[in-house]
């Protein structure tokens, strides 16, 4: 009977079946090692806040509340977008309970698309002009972003691609501040001044710190990291063109652990957490006292696609 079976199966089929018999149990074993469970004493967090800052805070929450936190972090490569797109892709069957973001625009986009139920902002960091002090003193540094188009800074300015992340939000807020026409003129002049368009704000700090560029546009927490690494950089003070960037936290629609989610939601907005983030230089402060750009977020979201298309046409051609 076995001989007949072998002949009917053919030469390689036996090998194929044996291979599948080996592989299938492996997959079954792995699926049984599920990374999440439906226990109510846990909460799933998607955190775009930098892992170095977020992880200790989440551990502290677990210690105080007894609720286990299962976290997924974003990467510098993705600049928040990975988790945002994941939340959108999982909307029909949410896996995440709480979304902790280190900026505001994407949180508002998610709320507008019904992915988040409640959300709130806390603390702030800011967008700053930075200089390499070996080449440019802080006194000589541009006082306004419009000065970045001056010929003396040609080929000496670095900023992240203004199509995503906090750089994009800053550019969009400037569009609201200056008006579309003046803003577009400024963008074209900026691009014509041959800036370094780099992958992220931390790369801006490295570029300026190395002297590849003399001036940069970046986030205050990245400046703090660069200064702690001993780079010769200094940041200009807050002014009316500085964008303030809040941390935001939101509860996903259909969260599987709603009680734990609300617990974490409230914990992250507490003064203790804000102080820890300030101490770690992830935030500058709890409140900026009215400084910085005034942003109408509803209008910004409404004009988002058109403005982004303009940015794409200018900075990607």
């Amino acid at each position: 009977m076995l001989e007949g079976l072998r002949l009917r199966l053919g030469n390689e089929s036996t090998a194929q079946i044996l291979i599948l018999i080996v592989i299938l149990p492996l997959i079954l074993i792995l699926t049984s090692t599920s990374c999440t469970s439906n226990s109510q004493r846990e909460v799933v967090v998607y955190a775009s806040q930098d892992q170095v800052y977020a992880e200790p805070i989440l551990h502290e929450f677990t210690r105080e509340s007894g609720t286990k936190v299962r976290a997924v972090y974003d990467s510098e490569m993705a600049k928040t977008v990975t988790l945002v797109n994941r939340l959108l892709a999982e909307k029909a069957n949410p896996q995440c309970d709480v979304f902790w973001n280190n900026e505001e625009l994407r949180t508002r986009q998610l709320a507008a698309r019904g992915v988040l139920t409640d959300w709130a902002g806390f603390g702030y960091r800011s967008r700053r002009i930075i200089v390499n002090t070996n080449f440019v003193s802080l006194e000589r540094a541009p006082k306004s972003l419009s000065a970045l188009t001056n010929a003396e800074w040609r080929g000496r300015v670095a900023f992240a691609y203004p199509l995503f992340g906090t750089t994009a939000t800053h550019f969009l807020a400037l569009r609201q501040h200056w008006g579309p026409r003046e803003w577009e003129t400024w963008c074209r002049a900026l691009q014509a001044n041959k800036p370094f368009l780099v992958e992220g704000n931390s790369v801006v700090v490295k570029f300026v710190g190395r002297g590849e560029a003399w001036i940069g546009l970046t986030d205050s927490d990245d400046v703090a990291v660069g200064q702690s690494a001993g780079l010769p950089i200094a940041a200009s003070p807050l002014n009316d063109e500085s964008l303030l960037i809040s941390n935001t936290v939101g509860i996903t629609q259909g969260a599987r652990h709603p009680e734990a989610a609300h617990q974490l939601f409230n914990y992250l907005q507490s003064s203790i957490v804000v102080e820890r983030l300030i101490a770690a230089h992830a935030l500058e402060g709890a409140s900026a006292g009215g400084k910085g750009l005034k942003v109408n977020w509803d209008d910004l979201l409404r004009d988002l696609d058109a403005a982004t298309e303009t940015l794409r046409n200018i900075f990607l051609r």
Partner: protein
Amino acid sequence: MAVLLINSLVTAGMATLLATLFGLATGLVTAALPGMLRRLALVAALVALAMPPFLVANCWLYYLGNVGVWRSWLPVNIFTIWGAAWLLSLMLWPISFLAALSAWRGLDRAHLESEPAMRGINLLRWLLWPAARKSVSWAAVLTSVLALNQFAIPGILQVKVLPVEIWIRYSTSLRPDSALAVSWPVIVVPIAMLLLLPRMDIRWPAELGPTTSAAMRRQLGTALLASSWVVAAAVLFLSVGLPLFQLISASRTWAELPRAWNAGWPVILNSFLFAAMAALVAVALAVATWRTRIGWAFWIPFLLPGMLVAVAVIWLLNRPFLEVVYRSMAVMILMLVLRFIGPVWTLVGTAFRTVDRDLIDAGKLEDLHGWRLFRHVYWPRVGPFATVAWYVAYVLSLWDVETTAVLYPPGAETLAIRVFNLLHYGHDAQVNALCLVQLGLAVLPGCLCAIWVSTTRRV
């Protein structure tokens, strides 16, 4: 978009050309080396293949950036298409190298000495190039696909290429279909190349013993061998020596290594297990499906931008009745298998198709069927190439971030994801320490294999 496409094609084309030349020159030299030196050259090639893109880019920016240490005596502008092609070729030359070397392993001394006048450039023209042409062509296609889809290196060097546009569409519109709409060139062009190529021949390796390598040295001649040596030495120094030197010469790298290991050993274990098991499953699937014509479709997930493939997997698996898979570690392995099965399937399938029919018939005459036929006839011939395919999938899986970062479940973080997270904070020493660990994982299978081979030979 036309400008971006042209930039992408030019960058990928130049990178492929350079990488193929580097691979051929280094392969020539390696084929002429005695045993231990040849194995060292192989290890160096594997290290070059496993080198992370940002490490290579940062190394060259240190030397040739606007304030690079070499700029005073080498005023070369690296922020150009040429610079991007140069860096990509330094990362991807091992693919052509391995293809050429495997083809030349099929030669023996009689081939090399059959015609006394066939020496030097004539040897290359009438024997070595014809023997390696098909496999090197396939390697060039794979190289160009990898170069075409690369956006990290061109991005760092300010070269505007199509993958950047794809990423931007995905990031700004939050609509994968918008990104997919502009992805068609990076899918169509490589598929066209794959379809136009003739079927690859696998040359079964003869024992490249000391007599064959000695015959190779003699027949290549001093001029050709010397010039190949110069190119090979430069390639190995620039692609492996320089970045490794930068990595290991920083004392903080070693100071951070114990802490990085202690804090990250679950992540290190994840990386190894996911990569090893994904490569194993990919090879097993390729063995099971090599006869099917539809296997060409396996290339599509490899050619598509990774984040779009991940979104598709989320759409497929994030359903209540499939959560047991989606929320477990299996989703990482399935994702990596889907991503890299294309090249594995081609290599394994080609190896199966070129098994000598006479051997199969002889096996059947000896009453070998089913598993015994596979084990005694097919596997000795296919095994080495399945092993190579496993290793290629293993290394690609180790460094994958584009797909796994989009859907990794809590607790399934890998080294590559952690490195990219840490890049943001400027913790270069920690990043370097983790890169050292990652390189160690990349060469670990080769080292274990070498130990096993030498142990079994002694026995």
